[in-house]
């Protein structure tokens, strides 16, 4: 199977693994991630990378990252230590390559696994979703955000929010899935906090300008920093004002080796616009939740953040305030 003179470094499980709770799936996901990152970077170094190839690799990278952002089962979260990340070295390379800013703290985010019935499916064609990863029964149409002409901003915001929010687990995916729906279920500050950093500048410096037409999106990495909610939103404020923020961002896991990646999916789908694309209810799904919770039942999937038991009222109040602030920024921009 291996081409001549190539030595496989990591043994991927070649078998079809759809059960996400199995370690095989996770190891394959990590393998695919590292290979994808490698390919993407090497492709960008070429004078004229094949656009089709770059797009496919970038999409795969995005999907693999989002798959990592699934809601875990609570017990797994508690017991599972973060796996060592082969990606760590890639991040270092990538850092140089994309001039992203990382803040390295070491509270690891537990890699999140999901119940096996949470399979992904591609959204219907008309949705034009960019990430064919469907999750659960989310009622809100995140694709509506894509109709916002300010794609970059929306994507930037959503990427920030995806890192902080919880996923809905356990529901069969009925609704079409858009990239923004991969909302993360993260442990709270008491459990180690998160690393988050501002998104890096766009592109790959001079190379981007030179080969703008042929280059794919710039990839960014940012880590979830060990910040409080206020700090987090302050960062959001600043980064929102950066017009040049790329749409596609790659946010890395932890130097400690977690492979949790947040991917900034481009918001290019032209799904139907909901009446309130930035309505509070929609955004509440993205509310940062620093406490973990158990997989939600489908019936409560519409507002998972609010309805999940572990959420504290204090979180909600604080989140609500920050959300208003965020809304203002979105509207103004």
């Amino acid at each position, binding site marked *: *199977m291996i081409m001549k003179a190539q030595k496989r470094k990591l043994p991927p499980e070649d078998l079809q693994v759809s059960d996400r709770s199995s370690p095989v799936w996770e190891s394959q996901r990590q393998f695919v991630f590292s*290979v994808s990152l490698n390919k993407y970077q090497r492709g960008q170094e070429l004078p004229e990378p094949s*656009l089709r190839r770059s797009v496919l690799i970038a999409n*795969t990278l995005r999907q693999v990252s989002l798959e990592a952002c699934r809601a875990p089962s609570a017990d797994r979260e508690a017991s599972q230590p973060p796996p060592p990340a082969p990606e760590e070295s890639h991040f270092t390379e990538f850092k140089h390559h994309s001039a992203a800013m990382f803040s390295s703290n070491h509270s690891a985010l537990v890699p999140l696994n999901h119940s096996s019935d949470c399979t992904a499916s591609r959204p219907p064609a008309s949705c034009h979703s960019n990430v064919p990863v469907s999750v659960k029964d989310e009622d809100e149409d995140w694709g509506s955000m894509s109709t916002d002409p300010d*794609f970059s901003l929306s994507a930037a915001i959503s990427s920030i929010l995806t890192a902080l929010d919880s996923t809905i687990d356990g529901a069969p995916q009925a609704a079409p899935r858009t990239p923004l729906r991969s909302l993360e279920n993260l442990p709270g500050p008491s459990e180690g906090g998160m690393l988050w950093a501002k998104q890096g500048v766009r592109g790959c410096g001079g190379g981007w300008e*030179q080969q703008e037409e*042929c280059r794919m999106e710039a990839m960014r990495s940012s880590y979830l920093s060990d910040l409080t909610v206020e700090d987090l939103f302050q960062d959001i404020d600043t980064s929102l004002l950066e017009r040049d923020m790329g749409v*596609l961002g790659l946010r890395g896991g932890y130097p400690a080796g977690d492979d949790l990646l947040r991917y900034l999916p481009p918001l290019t789908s032209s799904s139907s616009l909901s009446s309130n694309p930035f309505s509070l209810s929609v955004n509440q799904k993205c509310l940062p939740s620093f406490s973990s919770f158990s997989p939600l039942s489908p019936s409560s999937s519409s507002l998972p953040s609010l309805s999940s038991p572990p959420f504290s009222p204090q979180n909600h109040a604080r989140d609500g305030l920050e959300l208003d602030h965020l809304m203002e920024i979105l509207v103004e921009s």
Partner: protein
Amino acid sequence: VAGGNDFQWCFSQVKGAIDEDVAEADIISTVEFNYSGELLATGDKGGRVVIFQHEQESKNRPHLRGEYNVYSTFQSHEPEFDYLKSLEIEEKINKIRWLPQQNAAHFLLSTNDKTIKLWKISERDKRADGYNLKDEDGRLRDPYRITSLRVPVLMPMDLMVEASPRRIFANAHTYHINSISVNSDHETYLSADDLRINLWHLEITDRSFNCKLLNSVSPDIVDIKPANMEELTEVITAAECHPHQCNVFVYSSSKGTIRLCDMRAAALCDRHSKFFEEPEDPSSRSFFSEIISSISDVKFSHSGRYMMTRDYLSVKVWDLNMENRPVETYQVHEYLRSKLCSLYENDCIFDKFECCWNGSDSAIMTGSYNNFFRMFDRNTRRDITLEASRESSKPRATLKPRKVSTGGKRKKDEISVDSLDFNKKILHTAWHPKDNVIAVAATNNLYIFQDKIN
């Protein structure tokens, strides 16, 4: 004309060097029969075009259909250097498409990543003899020495086939050209790159050509060529004109979708008339679902009622009247599904296989690895796997069906998946428009197979 398993395929010819070390430039990158099947053109990575012509059947050996012999060879494209971008443009011929024959000369379009050329291939078998102003050597004669006039006479000469570039279509594509397709009106053709489709007008006269860029079609795949290139997640992978309706063409995408556009509907085909996509099967979802859904080739049936798409693992036949799913799906090498991880690692998953119809649309053919190629009979639903190899290259030798073993037990004559040679890939195949003659490109060799005439 029946296809597939109704008869046996046998070896006819193989073109190309036998050496183990294959020069990169000799790798065949496109194969195409002309409309009558009399001519067979190949393009290679070195930018050369070789045209084979079908010789008439020999009276001595009527059981042979006649062979294809070299008719013309010329350098179509040279490597270029884009000084603005500091890039070298590959001379590899991506596609050749013949124009319908209108006079004694043959015309074809050949394209590399950036430039399309219209070539005229004409025969010369006579020469003029007895010029007044120049002598036999071609030197000019002293006019004062000319005492009488004579009429030059046409003398027969050895056949010479000349290829001359009649038109060069350059600087119209920012990205890599993946397809060209001649329209049924024979006056226009389209060219497609990753993000744009251009429509050209050809006006072929004896001497001059008018070729204008008629229309720049930027299809709407979520605003392909988005304002922000970073938002790009889908590209055009192939395009083809409808064989009969000169206003209709289709293009496929890297996300497994096909759009049919009617040029009458809008000046800029930014809205498609039809959108073809098969819903994904959630049970077969993997990290590579999108990559393997990327369509590498799209071909209309000769009837114009169906179209066929090739993705990494399968060939699908679509009825143009049904957009939500294909009418037929054929698995080319399903045993590779469990190997996608490795195939992604070694880049094989990005290989672009082509597919083709037989003349009557009753059978389809596509390539695979290990120099295997597959044929599917649409009527009987039978399929066959054959191999293009030197071992089975004895004259008129019947090709033995091959089988890849997927289970634990490997039967005799079967080959296991892990033993497949992924360097030997058959990406380009062509089927004679009328007869059961097929051309299969295996790296630097061109194999020609035909059915056994009993």
